């Protein structure tokens, strides 16, 4: 059994109240941290080598150390805009153990020298925001947040700020613009938030899970924490497993265990008789892996080596009953809907990709369109203002690369259905998987059969 740091007795009744949290030793790490100089707290964070749990996987201690020293107003922003499809770990943490997050924020702010902090929570999380607000009121009343916390020189204000429904606000600079009351358009970087972030001041932005881990790191010590996991992916990680699995949900794992253990061992794998066709290892923005990749260790570097990423730790499993085109179309439509529209390749590229995929589905495409689609993805990757364009182009590109024969078969089947058989001979037949898929594609094309997984 994996050590449970974040999920330790998470369902204990009343854990979201200050009473129960404190009875379990809550806010002791804060006392300990406040007794330490900020540099010492920072040292523990650096020693833990914890990498950001939001998606980019940047070392938190380094991020804190990038903040300029000095007396200017500094800000800490907790990114609770959990919007990456397939990700729901922060939701469970905030709902069930809000004080752990608040404690982590106060400790991190102490280390970073921030005096104002915000939790930017997605507007859809009404329950969780209400719980955070209640917990914050308790923490404030108890002197854990506010002026001269626990009699120390450290002061911190904290505001729970609710978003209003925009995936792009999970991108850190889009989040900052949104928090400033603007449209959530990402900003040009540099300058990075550590230098010019919220209200142009130095700003530390971290994910909920990262900040919620901070009390543990202080309690057990950074070095001890670093013993968990593998060398460059230390600690435990919450993974959200969803899609075609029997036991979808959040699991706390030690980084570096085989992916199969998560998908099959913890989440129960696909329903009986089905097999894994492909899976997103880190939310819908990560390039897909296939059933052949289940033995890859689940950690940052192994995933990168496999050409994908750990991202937010959201595993979405797709079984062999689903046409890959449906997956691609869902993903592409999502990113088209969420593109902020600021930069050209993302705005136009997501739109164009959806149109091509729809054309494939309606029998109006030829295999040449696959080439164009692949090339459009290449033209998006690396050329955008932020990573949203890449977030569509990378998984779509990976699907084309790994399931090209199926795309070709889909084109063929859809054309046949639409009565367009004229050029097929010239194009050549789609190869592997064609038979099974022609059947799948001939049915409802965008609807995915209910799996009865629950």
């Amino acid at each position, binding site marked *: 059994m994996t050590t449970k740091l974040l999920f330790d007795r998470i369902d204990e009744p009343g854990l979201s109240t200050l009473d129960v949290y404190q009875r379990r030793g809550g806010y002791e790490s804060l006392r300990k941290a406040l007794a330490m100089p900020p540099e010492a707290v920072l040292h523990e964070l650096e020693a833990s080598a914890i990498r950001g749990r939001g998606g980019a996987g940047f070392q938190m201690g380094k991020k804190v150390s990038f903040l300029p020293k000095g007396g200017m107003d500094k800000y800490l922003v907790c990114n609770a805009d959990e919007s990456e499809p397939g990700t729901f770990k922060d939701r469970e943490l905030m709902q069930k153990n809000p004080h752990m997050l608040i404690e982590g924020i106060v400790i991190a702010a102490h280390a970073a020298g921030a005096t104002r902090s915000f939790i930017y929570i997605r507007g859809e999380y009404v329950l969780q925001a209400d719980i955070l607000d209640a917990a914050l009121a308790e923490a404030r009343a108890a002197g854990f947040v506010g002026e001269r916390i626990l009699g120390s020189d450290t002061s911190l204000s904290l505001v729970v700020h609710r978003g209003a429904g925009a995936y792009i606000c999970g991108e850190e600079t889009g989040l900052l613009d949104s928090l400033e009351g603007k449209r959530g358009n990402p900003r040009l970087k540099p300058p990075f938030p550590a230098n010019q972030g919220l209200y142009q001041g130095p700003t530390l932005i971290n994910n909920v899970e990262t900040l919620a881990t901070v009390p543990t790191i202080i309690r057990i010590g950074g070095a001890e924490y670093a013993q968990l996991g593998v060398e460059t992916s230390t600690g435990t990680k919450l993974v959200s497993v969803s899609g075609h699995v029997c036991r979808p949900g959040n699991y706390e794992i030690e980084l570096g265990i085989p992916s199969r253990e998560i998908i099959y061992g913890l989440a129960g794998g696909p329903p009986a008789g089905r097999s894994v066709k492909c899976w997103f290892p880190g939310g819908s923005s990560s390039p897909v892996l296939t059933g052949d990749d289940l033995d890859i260790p689940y950690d940052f570097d192994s995933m990168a080596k496999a050409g994908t990423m750990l991202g937010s730790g959201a595993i979405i499993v797709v079984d062999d009953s689903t046409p890959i085109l449906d997956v691609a179309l869902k993903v592409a439509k999502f990113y088209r809907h969420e593109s902020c529209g600021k930069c050209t*390749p993302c705005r136009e590229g997501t739109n164009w990709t959806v149109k091509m995929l729809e054309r494939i589905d309606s029998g109006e495409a030829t295999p040449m369109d696959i080439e164009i689609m692949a090339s459009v993805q290449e033209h998006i990757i690396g050329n955008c*203002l932020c990573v949203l364009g890449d977030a569509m182009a990378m998984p779509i590109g990976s699907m084309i690369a790994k399931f090209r024969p199926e795309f070709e078969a889909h084109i063929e089947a859809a054309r046949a259905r639409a009565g367009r058989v004229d050029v097929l001979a010239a194009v050549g037949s789609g190869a592997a998987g064609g038979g099974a898929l022609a059947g799948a594609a001939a049915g409802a094309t965008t609807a995915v059969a209910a799996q009865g997984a629950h």
Partner: protein
Amino acid sequence: MPRPEHRTITFTIDGLEVQAPENAMLVDAAKLGDVEIPVFCYEPKLGNPVGACRMCLVEIEGIPKLQTGCSTPVKDGMVVHTQSERVKTAQNSVVEFLLVNHPLDCPVCDKGGECPLQDITFGWGLGTSRFIEPKRHFVKPLALSPTIAIDRERCILCYRCVRFSQEIAEDHQLVLLERGAHSYVATFDGHPYVAPFSGNIVELCPVGALTSQPYRFRARPWDIEDAGSVCTLCPAQCNVTLTVRDERVLRVLARENPEVDDGWLCDRGRFAYPRLGGDERVTQPLLRDGGELRPVSWERALDEAATRLSRAGGRVGALAGGGTTNEEGLLLSRLMREALGSPHLDSRPAGRLALELHRALAEPALQAHVPDLEYAHAVLVLDCDPIADAAILDLRLRKGVRRHGMKLVRAGREQLLDAAARDELLDTLLADLRSVAGNEIVVLWHERLAAGADGERAVRALLDLAATLGLAEIDGAGLLEVPAHANGRGLREAGVLPNAGPELGDTDEDGLDAQGIAAAFALGELSCLYLLGVDPPTGGSGTVIAHAAFLTDALREQADVVFPAEAYPEKEGTVTHPDGRLQRVRRAVRHIGETRDEQQVLDALTSRIGLAVPS
């Protein structure tokens, strides 16, 4: 506040070593090596780059990803490639993306031929598109305001127009609505975009999405010629480019001069031209005959005017204003003082100011310039409404506040005049000084401060304030007067004053000022009025001789001789900016009707009256 200073560095672009100011954006630095990096959203006038269009991607050695040239400051030793395969592919693809929804209606587009999208597609595009889906179509064009039409099909969402509204004009009326590919430029709930500087968005638009209603379908770029001049419709004297076709002005564009207008133009300056070249102009000399003004020949009008002026002699008063040039002012001064022997001339509606005060205000060390408004630590706007008095200065003040944290303080004349309040004002300013940690203060004041019975007292108070703040000793600090007339400063320096000759020199005899001339004419003490670009004051039954481009009601009632005056696009001469800069007004179109060069008219009158015209 310190002005930007740059040391020169050397970087390499496409194998060429180029010297450039350090931290200049790559797009600008590249131009110094004759390398063009294409851009759409980049426009330095709009403030910090946004990196939205992605057209300017370049390869920089040592950085794995392509970078936007518009936002990358150039550093010593940087090695940049704009011609590599990677860069070319990126450029091609951005053009392809931009054209996904851009209609190919260039043949009927006003922008065609002068369109950055056309040029960049030609220069950096692949020439083909793989987009075969139907393009989006919308009803077009739509009215955005009475003067601007919007074509949303053509919009490439470069953000320039909305950035102008948010960050330059700060009217916050034009915004992007919706998100992603659905984004579009609009106003709130169908309200028109009406604001003092709205027309600039037409010029900023890199495609034909925003077009000028009056210019729509009037000319193609190959039909037109550009003529640089200076707009003399207000004292701001913005530099303009006049678009001329067949001797008619069809458009007015800003001609960037950072010392004057920063590349912006107000809507009045931009959209007044149809009237300037229109049917209401006076195109022939007019003479009152049987109670009506009737067209007559130039000879007849000149003879009549010369006769009446000679008859009146020393009892002539002259007023000048509007777009009257320095040369015209000098000739008027000569006509009045030397030919007619009358000292009664003025160009300041505010009236007489003691010569010592004129001279004190003109003290060179005390002069502030337009860029000082931007870099000052604080600006005191005194009895002046920039939007109404010299619109473009409003943008400069906003820029100072927004980009440099300049402190803006507004005060009226009463505050300056009331001794107790004056201390309070000084206290406020001094407090501001402490808060901004700098002593560069500019006082932007309007001529009206000096008007009326308290005028001299107000000017003395202003000079006291300047002395208290030590403005004369501080670089970047000083006074900047907005005169009532467009060339008020030039006319003053040309000697169109009752108590000073050219260059504020002494005069033999003190004359009546503007109010004095009006009163004396009403009482019949002056029997003739000579007017250059101003309306006659009410009252009086003497002769009124006027140079006028338009027949106002007052002229229609009172004028006896009217010479058709040139509008500024027809004028040749110089004007003096309120901050002392000499600017040249150049003739862009030929005279309308029988209009003549006004300098020649003044010369002709002078010689008819009997003073030889110097050659």
